[in-house]
């Protein structure tokens, strides 16, 4: 039998305006307000500060942008994120008013087509948003960039990391418990996003935003979607030893040549290498530039062809014959590796393996 359904020929119905957001009266304790908020799907399980008009008005003082401006219609729900609604979520997460320009830029970066929010927010993978901040704003806002910058205890990092995911879930509708975010396991970074500053003070090379043609005095945000993976090592004493270890770590993942056939238009090839200051210092002292580090990794991060997934490894025709023992490169080219310096004293580093979309870097306008 052929399907019988036929949508009506009609105009799209009129909708409620995006601004101002709906107000309602509530009587109860803070605990009960949080229960109501959670049960309506307006929080992620952590407590929030109930969003009163007074608190939201105070948060809006942090920006000169009009509260009725729609910053982004967030998929998959197609919820309209106005500046006012961003302030609502910032207030709920405990953000200070002065965080608003940065949060607005983060949302604008997420909204770029190349970021592929839709793919990242609904994938079966565990990827989560990562936000790195460069420029004087890092110290102005107290964004952690040194010891434990991805851990707790840093108000700016944690509250903004929380606000971002609240917005994605509540306005964008990508909620794992509602089976909209289809992540098999999810990630704690889907609650508090990985949010940190680059440790420019300890960076022996030029900061990331300067490498991307911004001025050192400009405030810049970089976002990507991926999985943060620790890169633990303790015993390297030379730059080459550091690179051997890093290349060994990056050889995993059963992929080669940047992901091969599996990597389509919506899939990232990027790896975001977050070197600890000590490891960056060893490399720089031994004369390694960022470009040389990238080149070394491309040449040395290899895996036996037999250990790769067929879908994640497309051997170029000019590579020559391969056997299961043939070592094949994990990366297709040096541009797939970004290098930043983050964290405090110690040897351990980390990397973010890109999921959907591309890395987006954007100037923060006050």
């Amino acid at each position, binding site marked *: 039998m052929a399907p019988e359904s*036929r949508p009506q020929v009609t105009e799209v119905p009129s*909708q409620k305006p995006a601004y101002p*957001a709906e107000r309602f009266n509530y009587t109860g*304790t803070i605990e009960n*307000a949080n229960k109501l908020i959670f049960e309506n799907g307006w929080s992620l399980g952590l407590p929030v500060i109930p969003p009163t008009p007074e608190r939201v008005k105070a948060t809006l003082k942090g920006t000169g942008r009009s509260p009725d401006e729609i910053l982004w219609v967030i998929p998959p729900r197609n919820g309209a994120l106005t500046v006012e609604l961003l302030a*609502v979520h910032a207030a709920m997460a405990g953000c200070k008013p002065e965080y608003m320009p940065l949060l607005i830029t983060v949302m604008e970066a997420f909204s770029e087509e190349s970021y592929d929010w839709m793919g990242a927010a609904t994938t079966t993978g565990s990827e989560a948003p990562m936000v790195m901040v460069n420029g004087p704003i890092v110290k102005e806002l107290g964004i952690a960039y040194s010891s434990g910058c991805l851990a707790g205890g840093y108000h700016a990092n944690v509250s903004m990391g929380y606000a971002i995911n609240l917005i994605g879930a509540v306005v964008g509708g990508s909620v794992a418990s509602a089976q909209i975010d289809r992540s098999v396991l999810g990630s704690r970074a889907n609650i508090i996003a990985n949010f940190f500053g680059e440790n420019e003070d300890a960076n022996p090379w030029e900061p990331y935003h300067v490498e991307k043609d911004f001025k050192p005095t400009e405030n810049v945000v970089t976002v990507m979607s991926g999985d943060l993976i620790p890169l633990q090592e303790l015993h390297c004493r030379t730059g080459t030893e550091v690179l051997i270890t890093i290349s060994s770590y990056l050889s995993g993942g059963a992929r080669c040549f940047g992901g091969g056939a599996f990597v389509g238009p*919506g899939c990232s090839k990027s790896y975001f290498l977050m070197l600890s200051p000590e490891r960056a210092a060893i490399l720089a002292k031994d004369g390694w530039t960022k470009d040389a580090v990238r080149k070394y990794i491309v040449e040395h991060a290899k895996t036996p062809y037999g250990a790769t997934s067929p879908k994640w490894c497309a051997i170029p025709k000019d590579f020559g014959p391969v056997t299961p023992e043939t070592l094949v490169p994990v990366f297709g080219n040096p541009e797939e590796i970004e290098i930043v310096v983050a964290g405090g004293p110690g040897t351990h580093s980390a990397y973010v393996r890109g999921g959907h979309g591309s890395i987006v870097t954007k100037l923060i306008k006050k």
Partner: protein
Amino acid sequence: MKETVHQRELINPEGTIVLPARGKIDADSCRPVALEGKTVALLWNAKTNGDLFLSRIGELLAEQVKDVEVIKLWEVDPATKRYGPAAFPAEIVNKVKALKPAMVIGSQGD
């Protein structure tokens, strides 16, 4: 411990839904009421097993709908095996439209 009860105004943090502006849907864009003698295109997003799922739909259509023509787009043009934000540029859409399918069935997710 007895908590304080507050009376307050709160703001709903959900926001409104903005539907894509599509304007009027013309009659040609409506789903057909019957598929007999028509063409159905199957669009695979390249994710594992999506082709098997679509192929089975194609088999069922062929069994149950008289004179239906089923086209597996990925076999006609591998360039249609795409996903992501730029999955369907005009070039790909036009290629599919040129086959004049009455319906396109896609497999999403993985």
